[in-house]
């Protein structure tokens, strides 16, 4: 904490941190100094000059910009003196002379800082009678963003964001003086994963989003605050709708999570909500064809067939997959449904994400996102955060670039953070454990890396770099990380509310509240509310699917899960579902998986229901309703409650809020967390375990065993390559598939090879390559990728039209037949 100094603003004495910018200090004490270029999350540039104020100095009163002046003891500031006001009015007049004043047709009209500040601080009328500047307009600067250079006031917020925050300096000023304009570079669009943020921070309507242009006026929008569920950060957003259609998401500045930023996937990934493809009525399959059914009819079918299987073969013959796309309340209902109504421990919210549920839910000590800001060293041994979690990527980037933290990145391929890394270690998939052993040993070149890592506090972001990697490696990495000074681990998995679902006990090894299944105390506590729960060992997602294939399991309940698309071993997922005697799916869409179900219930989506979600640091936040679901869609918990009634064991839930109260009762780490708390007092969310609460399972992986690591290392079969299979920001997941602005941005199928391997195989950029694994054989265009190790190929996972290659390490690669042009 910096020393406090006393300064006087407009005659009022306030105490502010020494060195604080006057514009921020004044705002924190209720004095709003007008501004355009200054943004609280970016470096100050003092360009627009709107925040001119008078400051008394020993050499007389000076007129200067509040955004570039730092508070010092005894400083006297006048923000509204005659001279300051005249200067501010003058700047506004200058900004307006070339502004087209087309507010009636501008998206920004009604929420435009230029409009608002002109009303508050500006002159009444224009004295400008000359010709305004003209440009061709609007011009697309990316697939998602349009630029109107006539409206632009050249504040450099967008260019600074691109450079300073996103690390994609793809827009810049061109020319000078009165001809200055924002431009992209020739043949290089502003194809940043974060381009949409520039639309939000543009203080005029110069940057507009293709998805929102001319759709609504801000004063017509119905707005609620919520948390994004595209990845596990839970970025705070405002969900904005008109006439029951969600029209846009904007970032909300929650210091704990996203600080206002969103990746374009999260900003524009709302289109699926209003998709025409959404399910509107229950569907029942009759003779291989779906037909629309009434709720009563569909529930009868489920009660008959699922009921019969449970009765004849026991609950143990039924598996449940899903819950990661649901709220905590829905996931809790799912867990309670599976364990008490069905009587099965076969339930999992993970879709072969490959990380142990105890590790994800209870690794300890667990880092908070904000710990990144205070870290001396950050270790990222996880998926490429730029592809999987945009705002977490920005936070790490910011910590390194602006706060000077050291960064060590370990990954089989280049990642978005490599340009900021102090050390980057590249390895062949399969050889991660050996590399970890070497690193922990600190011999040779690893000594320097270890030296960097010995600067605490250390925050380690730990996950599975790709889908062929040994699932246990992350725990070993965490064990290593926790041996570093003052270290904490941020466990990383990207699937939506998977952390919440695990906290709700949607895993074979966990009960609600981070308790281990089989723990007698926790079981007793839970049974007091739930009644008896099954005791047999449960299966995870792959176990359930394999059980269906083998005939050990007979029925499957899918809750917002698409294993055929999302599980790397898609073949097993499909065969499992086809083998099942009965499948009931609760879903937004007919997906590759719910297509195979016998009964499908239409569910409510994000924005259509209330509840809570829990992010990767354990932060619980409220999500809210702003539109109603299409047709007869219902919340997951309602559907499960209906089914439970028909099965004769009613869950008896009255509302989602009532479920949240039950969670607080049943799951001690959630004790004290209520919707009311989240709405009013805990605006940045509440971190679990909340308050004084502990958690039953504190999973602290032991130190590094180099021999065990060496045994864990694997190599592909002789003659084969090691496969690196990893997710991309945009892919063929069902939500992306139904968000049309984004689906087209998926990179598509490709096989990346090291240049030496490509030369050896006689493959050049773009030529077709035969790729064969135990699961699939496909022909993909080659991309020469020097960031890989030799002997490795990288294939992006889940791309449109490309079958899954499975999670086997070995892949056989050969030059495809030449296709003549």
């Amino acid at each position: 904490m910096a020393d406090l100094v006393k300064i006087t603003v407009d005659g009022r004495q306030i105490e502010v941190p020494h060195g604080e910018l006057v514009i921020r200090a004044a705002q924190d004490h209720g004095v709003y100094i007008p501004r355009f270029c200054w943004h609280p999350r970016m470096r100050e540039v003092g360009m627009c000059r709107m925040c001119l104020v008078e400051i008394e100095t020993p050499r007389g009163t000076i007129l200067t910009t509040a955004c570039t002046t730092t508070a010092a003891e005894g400083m006297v500031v006048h923000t509204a003196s005659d001279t300051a006001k005249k200067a501010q009015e003058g700047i506004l007049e200058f900004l307006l002379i070339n502004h087209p004043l087309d507010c009636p047709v501008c998206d920004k009209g009604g929420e435009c800082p230029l409009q608002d500040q002109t009303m508050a601080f500006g002159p009444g009328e224009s004295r400008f009678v000359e010709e305004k500047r003209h440009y061709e307009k609007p011009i697309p600067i990316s697939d998602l963003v349009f630029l109107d250079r006539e409206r632009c006031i050249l504040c450099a917020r967008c260019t600074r964001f691109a450079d300073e925050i996103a690390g994609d300096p793809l827009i810049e000023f061109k020319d000078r003086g009165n001809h200055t304009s924002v431009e992209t570079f020739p043949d290089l669009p502003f194809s940043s994963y974060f381009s949409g943020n520039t639309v939000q921070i543009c203080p005029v309507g110069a940057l507009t989003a293709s998805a929102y242009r001319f759709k609504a006026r801000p004063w017509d929008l119905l707005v609620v605050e919520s948390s994004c569920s595209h990845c596990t950060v839970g970025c705070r957003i405002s969900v904005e709708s008109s006439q029951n259609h969600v029209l846009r998401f904007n970032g909300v500045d929650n210091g704990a999570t996203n600080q206002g930023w969103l990746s374009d996937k999260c900003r524009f990934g709302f289109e699926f909500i209003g998709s025409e493809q959404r399910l509107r009525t229950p569907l029942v399959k009759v003779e291989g064809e779906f037909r629309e059914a009434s709720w009563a009819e569909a529930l009868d079918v489920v009660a008959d067939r699922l009921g019969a299987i449970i009765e004849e073969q026991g609950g143990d013959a039924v598996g449940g997959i899903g819950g990661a796309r649901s709220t905590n309340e829905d996931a809790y209902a799912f867990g309670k449904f599976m364990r008490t109504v069905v009587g099965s421990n076969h339930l999992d919210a993970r879709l072969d994400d490959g990380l142990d549920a105890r590790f994800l839910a209870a690794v300890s000590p667990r880092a908070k996102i904000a710990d990144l800001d205070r870290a001396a060293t950050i270790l990222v041994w996880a998926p490429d955060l730029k592809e999987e979690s945009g705002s977490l990527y920005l936070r790490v980037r910011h910590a390194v670039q602006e706060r000077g933290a050291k960064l060590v990145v370990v990954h089989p391929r280049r990642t978005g953070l490599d340009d900021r890394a102090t050390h980057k270690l590249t390895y062949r998939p399969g050889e991660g454990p050996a590399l970890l052993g070497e690193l922990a040993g600190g011999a040779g070149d690893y000594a320097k890396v270890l030296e960097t890592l010995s600067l605490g506090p250390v925050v380690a972001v730990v996950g599975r770099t790709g889908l062929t990697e040994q699932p246990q490696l992350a725990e070993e990495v965490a064990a290593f990380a926790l041996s570093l000074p003052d270290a904490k681990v941020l466990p990383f998995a990207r699937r939506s509310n998977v952390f919440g679902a695990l906290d709700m006990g949607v895993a074979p090894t966990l009960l609600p509240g981070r308790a281990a299944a089989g723990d007698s105390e926790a079981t007793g506590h839970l049974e007091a509310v739930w009644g008896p729960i099954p005791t047999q060992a449960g299966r995870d997602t792959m176990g359930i699917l394999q059980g269906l294939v083998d005939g050990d399991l007979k029925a499957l309940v899918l809750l917002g899960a698409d294993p055929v698309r999302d599980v790397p071993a898609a073949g097993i997922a499909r065969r499992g579902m086809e083998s099942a005697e009965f499948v009931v799916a609760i879903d937004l869409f007919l997906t590759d998986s719910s297509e195979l179900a016998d009964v499908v219930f239409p569910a409510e989506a994000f924005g259509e229901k209330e509840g809570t979600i829990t992010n990767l640091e354990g932060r619980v936040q409220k999500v809210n309703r702003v539109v109603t679901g299409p047709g007869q869609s219902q919340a997951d918990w309602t559907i499960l409650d209906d089914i439970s009634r028909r099965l004769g064991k009613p869950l008896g839930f009255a509302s989602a809020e009532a479920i949240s109260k039950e969670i607080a009762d049943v799951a001690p780490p959630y004790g004290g967390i209520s919707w009311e708390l989240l709405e009013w007092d805990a605006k940045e969310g509440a971190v679990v375990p909340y308050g004084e609460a502990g958690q039953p399972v504190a999973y602290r992986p032991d130190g590094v065993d180099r021999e065990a690591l060496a045994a864990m290392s694997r190599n592909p079969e002789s003659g084969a390559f090691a496969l690196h299979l990893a997710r991309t920001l945009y892919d063929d997941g069902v939500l992306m598939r139904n968000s049309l602005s984004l689906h087209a941005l998926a990179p598509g199928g490709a096989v990346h090879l090291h240049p030496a391997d490509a030369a050896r195989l006689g493959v050049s950029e773009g030529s077709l390559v035969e790729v064969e694994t135990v699961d699939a054989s496909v022909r993909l265009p080659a991309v020469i990728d020097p960031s890989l190790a030799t002997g490795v190929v990288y294939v992006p996972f889940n791309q449109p039209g490309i079958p899954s290659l499975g999670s086997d390490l070995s892949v056989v690669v050969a030059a495809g037949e030449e296709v003549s042009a």
Partner: protein
Amino acid sequence: MIEGIIVTAVANEVHEAFVYIRGEYPKPARRVQQAIDEAYAAGYLGKGIFGTDYDLDVTVHLGGGAYICGEETGLINSLEGKRGEPRIKPPYFPAAKGLYLMPTIVNNVETVSNVPHILAMGADDYRALGHADDTGTFLFSVSGHVKGPGNYELPHGITWRELIFDVAGGIREDRELKAWIPGGASAPWFVPEHHLDLEITKDATAKAGSMLGSGAVIVMDETTCVVKAAERVVRFFSHESCGQCTPCREGTTWMEMILRRVEDGFGRSVDAELLLDISDNISPGLAWPPKQTTICPLGPSAVSPVTSVTRYFRDELMQHIEQGGCPLG
């Protein structure tokens, strides 16, 4: 100059020096480079200069063609390969955070070139040149409507009358002197009624509301339309504005447009006051030395011709507006 650089570098324990030359001056740049090459060959620059263990490298950098890169922080940005835009002071005072954020001394070539002469002559003899208030000599570049335009090194303390009529040979075709710009385009103008017998020193010039600046003296005779002259100077600044800050980018262009409209015969009675108020929004109070709402002094520089015309030639400006065109044809 090279000698001056070496002395300055040794005095300040500097080992890297740059000579920044505008991109429009390739021939002078080649000459400077040639001289530097010769100095390297002679062992005056490079590793171990003059046989000592002192290293000094001098690099000639050609700018991209921007007046604003004469401003020290704009120059530094340009040297770093960035857009030629001045930096905010504070915190970017070159002596604290200059080139690549290292402490940096930025001086005019003329200043550095004086150093060896001061050393050679001794401070007392040097001080004996010029005026008691302003010692030594100064380089004047006299241009415009004089018989003898050119560069002259003269001691401080002579009068403007001596400079224009004796040194530069008087007004061409023996016309009347109307006005002159005493120190580069950014300096407020002088007129014969008030300033001809003023001694040329920094203080006297500042007291009279202008500056010696670069020493570029531009002389205008009676045939000069002051509105057109002011428009030309403002257009220069509008063209050279880096565009970074609002008042300079928008204000200089707006003033240029108004002056051109007045010159073209479409002036309005409100234009004189409007010009002054725009000027005031760039340089509050229209005082000297100028205050500024801008990041650097380029914006206020464009105000100088406007205030000069409204101060000394308001009648001529109003004639333009009332007659719908230039009275001088």
